[in-house]
């Protein structure tokens, strides 16, 4: 009756060996560093220039037709505590041992975004100019992107009956109209500026080189998580601003290498389902055999 213990073990081992063999051959290839597209657009936020006026927060909500966030500290105020379904950008304040600094949070527009990798259906894609864009028509609301993002950016509209994911798309509708993003347009001190990533990176390095005592000696986003299109320079350490210490590997690399390996050439599924089919066949044959 049924398969023997021996057969089951043999089948499992065979499947496991096939997966292991496939992954051994493909893992090194996935680690190749990614280059930003030549026309990649982004933002440069200089924490030393920001005065915390929140004009960008308000203008962003207006440009993206977002309702004021009154769930934060007090219903009297439009006060998002962090990125939320009502806020694609938010100004936070660090006050501690390393001094004080404002921090503008928004989507980093990673060169190799974890959200795009995690999205099972292609609602999040890397669009022209490297903008990580969202297509609500495809979204199934699984919120994998929320969990995958190392910067905790995509937010789900919990209070909506037809919820969407809310995240900065670099005002791509405004860009199409020839305007710049709302936040950079209204910033009174040009603390956040808009441009091509290559130019912004150069400008950031120029500012650091011009005043090395003022700035932290590197540009956050140049290499973090494989590089981001939104860059930060600051006078306080980046981890104090809530920017996680990440290595140069793109955030989705590990998960992607496993998953892409498992499904490489569709070998593993074929092996697995082949084995299952064999088991079923054997079971049927033994069931059809008359009882001894």
């Amino acid at each position: 009756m049924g398969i023997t213990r021996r057969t089951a073990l043999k089948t499992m081992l065979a499947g496991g060996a096939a997966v292991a063999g496939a992954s051994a051959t493909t893992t090194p290839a996935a680690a190749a560093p990614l280059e930003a597209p030549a026309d990649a657009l982004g933002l440069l936020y200089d924490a030393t220039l920001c005065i915390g006026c929140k004009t960008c927060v308000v203008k962003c909500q207006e440009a993206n037709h977002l309702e004021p966030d009154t769930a934060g500290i007090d219903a009297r105020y439009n006060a998002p505590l962090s990125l939320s379904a009502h806020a694609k950008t938010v100004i936070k304040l660090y006050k501690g041992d390393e001094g004080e600094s404002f921090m503008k949070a928004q989507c980093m527009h990673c060169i190799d975004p974890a959200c795009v990798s995690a999205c099972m259906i292609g609602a999040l894609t890397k669009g022209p100019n490297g903008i990580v864009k969202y297509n609500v028509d495809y979204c199934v609301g699984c919120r994998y992107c929320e969990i995958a993002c190392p910067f905790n950016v995509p937010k789900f509209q919990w209070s909506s009956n037809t919820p969407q994911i809310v995240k900065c798309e670099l005002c791509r509708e405004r860009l199409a109209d020839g305007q710049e993003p709302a936040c950079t347009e209204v910033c009174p001190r040009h603390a956040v500026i808009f441009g091509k990533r290559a130019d912004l990176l150069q400008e950031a390095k120029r500012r650091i080189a011009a005043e090395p005592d003022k700035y932290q000696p590197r540009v956050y986003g140049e290499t973090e998580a494989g590089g981001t299109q939104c860059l930060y320079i600051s006078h306080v350490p980046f981890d104090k601003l809530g920017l996680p210490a990440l290595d140069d590997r793109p955030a989705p690399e590990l998960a992607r290498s496993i998953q892409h390996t498992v499904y490489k050439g569709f070998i593993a599924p074929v092996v697995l389902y082949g084995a299952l089919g064999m088991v079923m066949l054997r079971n049927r044959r033994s069931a059809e055999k008359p009882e001894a």
Partner: protein
Amino acid sequence: MPACPAGVHRLAGVSLAWRCPLFASFSLDSPGVGEVSRRDFVRFCSMAAAAVGLGPLAAEDFVKAAERGAKPSVIWLQFQECTGCTESLLRTSHPGVDELILDLISLDYHETLFAAAGHQAEAALKAAVEKNAGKFVCIVEGAIPTKEDGIYCMIGGRTALEIVNDVAGKAGAVIAIGSCASWGGVPSADPNPTGASPAHAVLKGKTVVNIPGCPANPYNLLGTVLQYATYGTLPELDEENRPKFAYGRTIHEHCPRRAHFDAGRFAEKYGDEGHRLGYCLYKLGCKGPATHANCSVMHFGEVVDAWPIGLGHPCFGCTEQKIGFRMPMHQTVQIFRPTPPDTYPPINANQGTISPVATAVGGAIVGALVGGGYVASKKLSQAPDEPPSSLPKAGV
């Protein structure tokens, strides 16, 4: 001194040349006693235009209109009111009421300012209505009682309802000044024994410009009247027929105490430290965030801080139909268009936690459900195939 058919009597504290409004004029050369030079006239026309936000070109147009003799005839009706709107008008000084009623407009009927009384006054009203029928501006001050056919307010044997329908029906433009004429105001407050109604409710089918306020800011009236006199048009109105130039913003938007609101500094009760320091009055029931009016930028009688919030009292919401005389004085309002506070979230905001008690309760509920389900499934599997005979059979 020419004789004045209607007669405007002098008011204490108002130094006006004793002239008739119908024949008031200014001299182009050196002014005589009691006359206004053209220069002075242009000056207060500019002030009036600036005060009501019509711009410098409007002043020129006012002057030209006045030179043409096209001063608007104004008939001012008073019903269920306290004369506060008139009193506040009397206390403007740029332009002063003398300049206003003599040079900019022709005030042909006003019970408070009239020297005439009785039959004389009634005759003046009739004459003024007939003379400028279809052209004059009818200003209504006070609510109109409608219960028992309006017997609660009668003047010269006629009810307010009859008078307002008669006069406003022949007017070129109808303006309701003050909260009573605009929304019903104090007389209409619950339980409204006289059935006090606003002008627009009585004058159905006619455009009534509402200039609410308790009292209304006289500049808002002035701007509307002068625009009508000069251009023959009414200012742009909002959905409640209030001129947008005056009622297009909330008190809160330009409140001098706004910085305190943004920073979260509130007076908690009258006379406390915060109240003495001039903190925001929101928690005392200030209706500023929901009240559309220009009080915060145009104070009364040209006296700095002569308006409720300037004096340390919360805004009462008199210009709003649903707030003034309707909402309790110290109840706080919903914020209209909330804005960011003067504080910042920390880098890692604590977004609330689940207490151990809640976790235990939740766990207990889940455990009970799982246990119940297990017991039920066990009982079901043990149940006999035949239903118990005590149960009624299907179809019986």
